[in-house]
């Protein structure tokens, strides 16, 4: 049997392409690293001189220079907490249902489609919805409560998804052990599955908090661009401008003489908060990995 197959040679072009693409992949990756460093560095550099206790603890000014961000910082944290408090039970409930009760059929696929759709809904669209329903129809006007409820809509799908995924990651043997002892399904979910999934869910919640903290489009149209004159003001009916909204508002409004500096300082504060949250996520992640190892 003679072979008709020629003796192949690896082509020079293939070798060159391989080298070139190897280099290109590294370059692209390093570009993103550089973009991030340039970005975070740039924001921190611009805002560094503004970062002092006075800036964090003064009330904002409407027309003059020298305003602080005390109420905005408070509102940001307050709104994140409220929106999470609203979204957590719903997201957990929906996540539990989808992971443990919805089966594998059509219903589950439909619910997943809905969660995905809500997660992909642009925040400006959620803002419009909140504005029509809460601000106008219910007459809540631009307020903390309008903002918190609308912001919760942003959080719900994320928490639902992370709950479902975390619950699906619970080892089957663990659940079977619980059922084997005669526990009901509810007991098994609450006492075995949820505690096991808790770290994963918590990671998702912290990520959600970060997203809610940075959200602005929703809050411009629901929580407004003003702050209460009292501090701290826990009332739900007062307007609640957050850091991110403040950042946007001072730059686009343009009445403050030191708008640029205030924006730079606010951006730096936001970046620092988010870096801290990121660190928290990393710690949680490490906790999860240690357990699964």
């Amino acid at each position, binding site marked *: 049997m003679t072979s008709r197959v020629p003796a192949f040679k690896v082509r020079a072009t293939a070798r060159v392409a*391989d080298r070139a693409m190897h280099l290109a992949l590294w370059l692209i990756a390093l570009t993103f690293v550089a*973009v991030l460093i340039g970005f975070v560095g740039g924001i921190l550099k611009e805002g560094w001189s503004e970062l002092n206790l006075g800036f964090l603890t003064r009330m904002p000014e409407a027309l003059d220079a020298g305003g602080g961000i005390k109420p905005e910082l408070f509102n940001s944290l307050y709104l994140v907490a409220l929106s999470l408090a609203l979204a957590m039970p719903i997201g957990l409930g929906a996540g*539990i249902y989808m992971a443990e009760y919805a089966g594998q059929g059509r219903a589950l696929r439909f619910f997943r489609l809905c969660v995905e759709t809500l997660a992909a809904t642009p925040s400006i669209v959620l803002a419009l919805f909140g504005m029509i329903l809460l601000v106008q129809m219910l007459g809540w006007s631009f307020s903390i409560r309008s903002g918190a409820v609308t912001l919760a809509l942003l959080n719900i799908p994320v928490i639902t998804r992370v709950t479902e995924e975390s619950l699906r990651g619970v080892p089957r043997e663990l659940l079977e052990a619980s059922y084997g002892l005669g526990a009901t399904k509810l007991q098994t979910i609450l006492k075995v599955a949820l505690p096991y999934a808790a770290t994963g869910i918590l990671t998702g919640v912290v990520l959600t908090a970060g997203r809610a903290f940075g959200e602005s489009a929703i809050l411009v149209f629901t929580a407004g661009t003003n702050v209460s004159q009292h501090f701290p003001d826990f009332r739900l009916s007062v307007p609640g401008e957050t850091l991110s909204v403040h950042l*946007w508002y001072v730059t686009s409004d343009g009445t403050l003489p030191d708008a640029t500096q205030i924006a730079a300082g606010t951006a730096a504060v936001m970046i620092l908060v988010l870096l801290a949250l990121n660190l928290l996520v990393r710690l949680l992640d490490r906790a999860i990995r240690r357990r699964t190892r």
Partner: protein
Amino acid sequence: MAEPMPDLPETTLDAPLLPDGLARIATQGTPCPTPVFRQSHLHRLADRWTHLLFLACTLLVVLLIGGILYFLAARGAGAFFPLAGNTDKVVTFREVFLSTNWDPGDGHFGIVPFIAGTLAVTGLALLVAAPTGVLTGVFIAKVAPPWMRNVMRQVMDLLVGIPSVVYGIFGLTIILPMVGHAWLADAPAAGFAVSAAILAVMIVPTVVSLSTDAFESLPSSLDEGSQALGSTRWQAIWRVLIPAARPRLLTATVLGLGRAIGEAMAVQMVIGNNPQWMLLMRQATDQTPVLRFLFTPAATLTTELVQELPNTASGSTWNNVLFAMGLLLYLMTMLLILATRRLGRQEHA
């Protein structure tokens, strides 16, 4: 491997198989005081009914999708039909969806400039983000050493966590002046180019993380099979891995597109907010068409909503048209989600 069983003491059938000490007690006739456990009535009831509570949470999500659609449609429809609560004149679909003339003060509500603006800016962003995102995915999954893999994961986590207003302020205060200084004789550089660049950085983490997953889920036997035939690593990636991961890579791109279309604040801060950009582009002659396109202040569906919604009276035609634009945006993202479903099915087929 199972441990070898230790030798058991001889037991008769009716003697309970218990550890030594207990067995003796049991055979001596002292009954073991083990109570009979039963689930309390309360637990059984709770077990039977709580799933309805969980179901209610799920149905709320479904309801929200419908609710958003309903309210946006109800308000958007006011622009075209004389509905209750509509205080202003109505316009035709033709005037809105086919006209490039946006001059609300004069009664012209053509939203083509915004649709075109959205398509242009997201298209440009995707042109950058899709290839670089997929290649970064390959890099993380198949090329990078473990330490670099971790670095890239963290970089992407941080990039996705940066709020859009912070991207916006960065573009506004650092990039716009820089680009204007470099290419436009210090004229402002607002427009599609800078907006798309920022948008690209914002959506790249989505594309990267989903394409990394796509490449990691491919069996390593494909990679090895190709290289065992004498392919270079790049040939294996280009001819085997990318085609094999194609449906999921497309899904990653579509989801990135969805994020780009919906992004409002960052784009609004750097695009220049000029609804008449199409007109301006046609009239201006001072630059090449490409430069003009990239650096003419423009507007998109989202930026116009952010810009104008606070300034319009509820119930006016202008306001209603803005809600119709919001509805359009919502329908576009829904369509994209349905597209990812299609792609998912294609993968399993």
